[in-house]
């Protein structure tokens, strides 16, 4: 059943893929964006987008949906409802489910649940069987079933030879390899290593734990001529490594997350388990370097690493608490702050949140071209709100931003012409 035609009126269309930035109407018929010559049907539903931005649907290339296995934290339906509420029309989900998505059966299960979901779900399969780092998964069959990338996210690939083989074999199948860059022998801590870890008596993780592995991936990609994507970059040194690799022409892309450009390790003070994540929140100097990397194009994407955990896993001693925070519903307002603060312009922001993730993953979307599937986000960049526990759509509440005043959010999220989120006026 096709959704009714939609006419989005008076919005500021920001479409970096077509170099468009200007106020005009956008007509959606049969779930697709029409060209300007198309006549407006009589049964059209009108959306007033005055004062709003109309952008290609946001794409989060790094989320954890917890299904199968830990549906008490999140499932595909609740996770995609949270996606829609945050302005995302598509998400790529990491394979560290229970069981791990290392087989056609798990991929197929995710895709079948996703047919009822409020966002497109692109499964990412494990690089190695059960993410144990010893044997490659069947990239060819997984790709044929519908995965868009491979990653052992949550765990680093310890064995450099296995990583090398993954980069080579993934290229044969047109799959992206996403690296969770962490040198495991250095990362046995629970927060960033520095004065705050000393003061709190918590075991620290030095920034070198990340940069050593980032450099390994760059070295492999460079020497093999293959492509690699670095997930959730958190440090100044990693940013610099990626910047200089790109300048040499290495086929490396990278993402960072809103918490790394918004928060520092200070958020852990008072043993706040909602600020415990991996990689950990770093210093102000790292935060500034991440912002610089966003401004100069070192980073290709903003991804949330949405990691839902129930209160059972967070309301415990800091050492015992699970890593990660939810992020789908706060990513857009936190990212919009970069525009207000002059770090990015609107065009660059939409590239980071939509166009580039689509291109890196090799999926549809990221554009408002005529004929394209109508995945669209309507953003009110000025709307102020307090992010409270009651309004969280995700099943989990593990966010360090609860109680914060945020500005800017999605007022409509449209997937294939269907409205998946409409902010109550």
């Amino acid at each position, binding site marked *: 059943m096709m959704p009714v035609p939609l006419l989005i009126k008076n919005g500021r269309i920001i479409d970096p893929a077509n170099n468009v930035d200007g106020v005009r109407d956008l007509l959606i018929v049969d779930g697709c964006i029409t060209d300007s010559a198309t006549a407006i049907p009589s049964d059209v539903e009108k959306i007033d987008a005055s004062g709003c931005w109309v952008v290609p649907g946001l794409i989060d290339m790094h989320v954890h949906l917890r299904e199968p296995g830990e549906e008490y934290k999140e499932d595909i339906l609740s996770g995609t409802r949270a996606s829609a509420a945050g302005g995302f029309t598509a998400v790529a989900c990491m394979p560290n489910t229970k069981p791990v998505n290392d087989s056609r059966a798990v991929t197929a299960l995710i895709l079948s649940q996703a047919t009822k979901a409020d966002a497109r779900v692109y499964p990412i399969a494990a690089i190695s069987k059960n993410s144990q780092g010893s044997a490659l998964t069947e990239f060819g069959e997984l790709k044929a079933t519908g995965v868009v990338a491979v990653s052992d996210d949550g765990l680093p690939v310890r064995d450099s030879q296995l990583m090398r083989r993954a980069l080579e074999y993934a290229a044969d199948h047109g799959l992206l390899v996403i690296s969770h860059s962490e040198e495991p022998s250095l990362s046995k801590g629970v927060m960033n*290593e*520095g*004065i*705050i*870890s*000393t*003061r*709190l*008596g*918590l*075991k*620290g993780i030095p920034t070198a734990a990340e940069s050593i592995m980032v450099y390994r991936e760059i070295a492999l990609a460079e020497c093999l001529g293959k492509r690699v994507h670095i997930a959730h970059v958190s440090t100044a040194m990693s940013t610099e490594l990626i910047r200089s690799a790109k300048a040499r022409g290495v086929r490396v892309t990278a993402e960072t997350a809103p918490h790394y450009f918004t928060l520092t390790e200070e958020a852990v003070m*008072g*043993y706040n388990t909602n600020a415990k994540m991996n990689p950990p929140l770093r210093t102000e100097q790292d935060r500034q370097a991440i912002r610089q990397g966003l401004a100069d194009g070192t980073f290709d994407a903003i991804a949330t690493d949405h990691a839902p955990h129930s209160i059972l896993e967070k*309301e*415990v*001693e*800091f*050492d*015992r608490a699970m890593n990660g925070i939810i992020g789908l519903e706060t990513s857009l307002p936190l990212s919009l702050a970069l525009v207000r603060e002059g770090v990015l312009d609107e065009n660059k922001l939409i590239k980071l949140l939509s166009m580039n993730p689509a291109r890196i993953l090799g999926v549809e979307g990221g554009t408002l071209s005529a004929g394209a599937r109508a995945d669209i986000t309507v953003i009110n960049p000025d709307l102020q709100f307090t992010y409270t526990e009651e309004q969280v759509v995700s099943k989990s509440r593990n966010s360090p931003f609860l109680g914060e005043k945020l500005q800017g959010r999605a007022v409509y999220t449209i997937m294939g012409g269907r409205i998946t989120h409409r902010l109550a006026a």
Partner: protein
Amino acid sequence: MTTGYFFSHRHILDIEHLSADDIDYILTTAESFKEISARPIKKVPTLRGNTIINLFFEPSTRTRLSFEIAAKRMSADTFNISASTSSATKGETLIDTARNISAMNPDIIILRHSFSGAPHMLSQYVNAAVINAGDGTHEHPSQGLLDMLTVREHKKRLNNLKIAIIGDILHSRVAHSDILGFLRMGSEVFVYGPGTLIPPGLKELGVTVCSTMKEAVQDADVVMTLRIQKERQNDPLLPSFREYASKYGVTAQVASWARPDALIMHPGPINRGIELMPDVADGTQSVILDQVTNGVAVRMALLYLVTGNS
């Protein structure tokens, strides 16, 4: 003491959040309690009717005994619960335990826990006052206070002293409390130990990290040695205790670099012959047993103050 001072802490979770006035007040209160322990009948009715729970998730005979004696000398009813940290893996979380104990309406919970921040968390879930009896590698505030009381007794002041702390700073909650306490009172803190056991950020706290033993100990008023925790040696932190003893152990020669009236201190129990040589531990400058005596007085003061008696 400033006029109009009053002790406003409901819990004693760390030294970090105590002001110089707070520390001064606690130590003065402790001094006034010392005399009770010297009486033939070592008991006052001050905390009669109060219920105090020693909740120890990590074994510590000394600290627990010290708190228990302190409580009993003030006529409180004390109960000891020794729990294994692994009990949480059997399903009961620290918060469950806290809620259960809280339901029995204790006045004070003294918590020893192997995870840093556990007392902070506990304090958010119980009505009782919480006293941190050592958490992970974070702090051990009552030990820091008894160290300061011992130094104050002997030196008649806590400012303008050179405090040398030698050994495993990284894992020592005692060292963390001492560093914060002595700095807060206006003294200088010098540390020396193997690079693997010196945590980052000490300079930002105002500590002088020394590269030789002599630099740390020279003209010191206090030489504080720390226990090397043999159980921590799964991480390659030290090649051997033999080498540690020769490079970082406090010998008579090392002690001679300090001021002639310098105090030799150790939080106990001592690895004799490793971090501290027996002749120094038992020498005339050693105040190690004074520390133990003062521990009871400081803990009496803390119990008294957190029950609202200021």
